[in-house]
């Protein structure tokens, strides 16, 4: 059966991918022996476009790098610009920025939990989780006026303050959400058919995870203890009390545990932020439109992992160079590798387990390691013949 490896292409349009990307899997029966991916279907040239826009316009463009972690990219960008301009952001501004960060993490992780359930055909959980995600969306909409791209960051602070009524309402909604979360935590970690699909699947050992430079919940589920919020604190995280959740099972189950734990931590952080919300301005006064020459690197713990922005200013209103490194970029290679050895049925959940975001990544990459040399793209006829042979040999069926 040495020649019996077939390659199935998945994407760029495939129901498990909400975004375009292309994977080629070499399969042997139902087992995957090689994997390789092409991304870049989403490359829109944002980095070049940033060089033609001023700093304020860039914020809005970068918000549209990705619709799920839109706040991550703007925060990372404005932090870099603030560093170059040497601006002091008022504490209330930092707190509100952090508040949106954590709300975004909440909605992103809920979204992920739903999508993960959908990948293994657990549509009821998908629907119910997304229903309660709407609660978070409502809070965000009330705060910022938008559901997805909040447009709340600006250089030197945030654009909108919250009122006392909103303050109360957020706490109230959070109370409802927390009750429901308990249920999802229970289901997500104990429902037998769900757990049966995720336990022991998509293994990425701790050592390999460190080598492959993975970040975010993906790394933390492989017992790699990294979290920018703690290691290199920004915004208001210095003043917050939170745990970094890690787990050592190195599989998808661990990633569910880590994300679910982070949802709970996020709820706690939001409460802390709201109770300790300082009075004062929300944005620094007199922000220049021009940034002095210089470069800055800004790190941000997005829901998916570490988001790195590099900004070089040249003394004008327009940045010289903006570089976005989205977390998915660092994780995809490792994720594709972790699929090797499992079944075809595990592809969607294994790829989805890193919460991929190709629009952030919008570049191309490869992977690696064909266990068998000389795999090839097969034609339909070969594929059919292979199937007939396989069943003939293994199940004694003749067609």
């Amino acid at each position, binding site marked *: 059966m040495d020649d019996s490896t077939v390659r199935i292409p998945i994407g760029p349009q495939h129901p498990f991918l909400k975004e375009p990307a292309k994977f080629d899997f070499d399969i042997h029966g139902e087992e995957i022996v090689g994997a390789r991916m092409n991304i870049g279907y989403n490359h829109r040239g944002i980095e070049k476009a940033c060089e033609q826009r001023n700093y304020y316009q860039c914020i809005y463009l970068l918000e549209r790098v990705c619709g799920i972690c839109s706040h991550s990219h703007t925060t990372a960008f404005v932090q870099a610009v603030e560093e170059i301009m040497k601006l002091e952001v008022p504490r209330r501004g930092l707190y509100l920025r952090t508040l949106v960060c954590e709300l975004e993490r909440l909605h992103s992780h809920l979204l992920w939990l739903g999508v993960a359930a959908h990948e293994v055909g657990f549509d009821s959980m998908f629907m119910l989780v997304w229903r309660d995600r709407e609660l978070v969306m409502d809070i965000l909409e009330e705060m910022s006026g938008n559901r997805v791209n909040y447009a709340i960051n600006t250089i030197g602070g945030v654009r909108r303050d919250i009122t006392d009524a909103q303050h109360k309402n957020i706490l109230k909604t959070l109370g409802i959400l927390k009750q429901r979360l308990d249920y999802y935590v229970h289901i997500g970690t104990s429902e037998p058919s769900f757990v049966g699909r995720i336990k022991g699947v998509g293994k990425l050992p701790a050592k390999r995870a460190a080598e492959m430079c993975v970040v975010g919940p993906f790394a933390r589920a492989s017992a790699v203890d990294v979290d920018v919020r703690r290691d290199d604190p920004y915004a208001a995280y210095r003043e917050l009390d939170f745990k970094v959740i890690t787990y050592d099972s190195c599989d998808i189950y661990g990633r569910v545990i880590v994300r679910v734990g982070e949802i709970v931590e996020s709820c706690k952080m939001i409460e802390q932020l709201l109770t300790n919300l300082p009075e004062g301005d929300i944005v620094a006064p007199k922000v220049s439109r021009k940034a002095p020459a210089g470069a800055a690197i800004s790190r941000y713990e997005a829901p998916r992992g*570490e988001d790195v922005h590099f900004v070089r200013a040249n003394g004008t209103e327009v940045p010289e160079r903006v570089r976005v490194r989205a977390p998915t970029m660092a994780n995809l290679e490792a994720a594709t590798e972790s699929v090797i050895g499992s079944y075809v049925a595990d592809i969607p959940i294994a790829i989805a387990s890193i919460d991929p975001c190709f629009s952030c990544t919008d*570049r191309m990459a490869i992977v690696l390691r064909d266990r068998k040399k000389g795999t090839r793209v097969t034609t339909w006829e070969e594929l059919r013949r292979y199937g007939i042979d396989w069943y003939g040999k293994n199940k004694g069926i003749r067609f």
Partner: protein
Amino acid sequence: MTVDFEARLKEAFPNTDIALGGGGRFWVVLTPDQLVPAVATLRDKLSIIQLAVIVGEDARDVFLANYVFTGERVVVLQVRMDHEKPEVPSLANLVPGAIVYERELKDLFGINPVGHPDLRRQAVPEDWPEGVYPLRKDVKFDQEESTAKEVK
């Protein structure tokens, strides 16, 4: 902590220009030949192995490639290249994660990573014109040019 790390970094890179930038980032300026030993030094002496990103830059007279390493602190290795023939040694053997970023250097800036295992077209489509590197400063795009005639 900072002093300590700075001292160790200076010890690891003698005779090199090291600057402490904003946010506590260290900038180390190198020539292309110094890159591979420098990455090995970072790994062995300071145990920093996580490559966050490679940022290419077109500074008009030279090309820059900033290798951002994160770990205990953020260290940026800045490599300066000749504008006429930009080349850097590939880090593919030392840091597997560098493959994607290097490929993108080639696609968007035309910086050639020497010794890269697989240089395919990545960020740009297969039928992208040869020798046009979109992020170079001298490349301007006519907006109306980007129509969809070829697919219709």
